């Protein structure tokens, strides 16, 4: 099977994640949509690895996963800190860096 259907699926997932980041207001859901976009790019990388016949794409996908894990840890800690001071997880409320 050629790689094109996988790439189109990846593009669709990326688009859905992108729209989610732009429309949702709950910081945690926005974060989940970022994860969805990262996953979509991973799918494209794995597909390219299969099409090209070498494992570099899979190594790149692996690195994306590691970076995503680190990003989630720090991001969720920031969301927790914001929630602790403001009692809200909405991205609109945190429009000022201070106060």
């Amino acid at each position, binding site marked *: 099977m050629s790689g094109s259907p996988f790439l189109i699926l990846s593009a669709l997932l990326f688009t859905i994640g992108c729209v989610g980041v732009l429309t949702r207001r709950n910081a945690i859901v926005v974060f989940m949509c970022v994860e969805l976009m990262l996953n979509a790019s991973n799918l494209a990388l794995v597909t390219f690895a*299969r099409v*090209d016949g070498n*494992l570099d794409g899979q190594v790149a996908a692996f690195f994306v996963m590691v970076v995503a894990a680190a990003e989630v840890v*720090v991001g969720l800690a920031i969301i927790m800190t914001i929630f602790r001071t403001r009692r809200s997880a909405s991205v609109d409320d945190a429009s000022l860096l201070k106060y």
Partner: protein
Amino acid sequence: MVAFWILSPIMVIAALGILFSRKAVHAALLLAVVMICLALLYAVQDAPFLFVVQIIVYTGAILMLFLFVLMLVGVDASDSIVETIKGQRLMAIVGGVFLGLLLVLGVGQVSLGSVAGLRAANRGGNVEGLAQLLFSKYIFAFEATSALLITAAIGAMVLAHRERLTPKATQADRAVQRMREYAERGVHLGPLPSPGVYARHNAVDTPALLPDGSPAEISVSRVLTVRGTMRSTPTADVDVLTGEIGDGTSNLPITGSGPRGGIDGDPSGRTPHGEDRTARHAHEHGEEA
């Protein structure tokens, strides 16, 4: 390639569900569906190592982290409807549709050529092949990753850490405070009375009875009182109970609905012989007198 055509509709529908779900918990569970389907697609595409990593790291670790934070933040933290930027939602959807069209059309027109396949690259095993690349060509990126992970862990610890503003109360401090409350307001010094467990119901939500038969509200946990789940004590409960099982002066047999006779049965007069036996009991007492 049946797997692709089965999994891709599920993934797209689940991803759209993340977009439209009201509750964040539902979004997290739908994201888990998308991630597990992605893992299966990795397995289909000759990437068994990534299949396992996707399940363990993403579905196992990252999503659990999301759910933990949702639990701490509150499950009902839903989206606000108010738009800070006017028309932002509509513009985002229009822009998203255009981006999707652009990507799908662009990718659709690219001819990828013949698929080389990973048979040659995976000959010595997928994990071994990845390890050879990681520890030779990508060794510096790999080292940088370790630094990134340690920084992230320390950063999360610093962010989640909270400074204690007041010194922690020791046992001695609490004893002093109890004595002060006793001296100033006459609060009882000793421990609180235990609830009416075993007295009438085998539950902590029943208040203990004071010697005059009135319920001791203080014996029930404050949390239960606030929730409003404290059980009320039936009046004249004890009298019915003694009538039911005898008060030690008579040798009436204990009969009732429960496994241990009248003690377990509901003694509030619903047992078929309750009324009858109470009457007989009173009669016996009369005779003795």
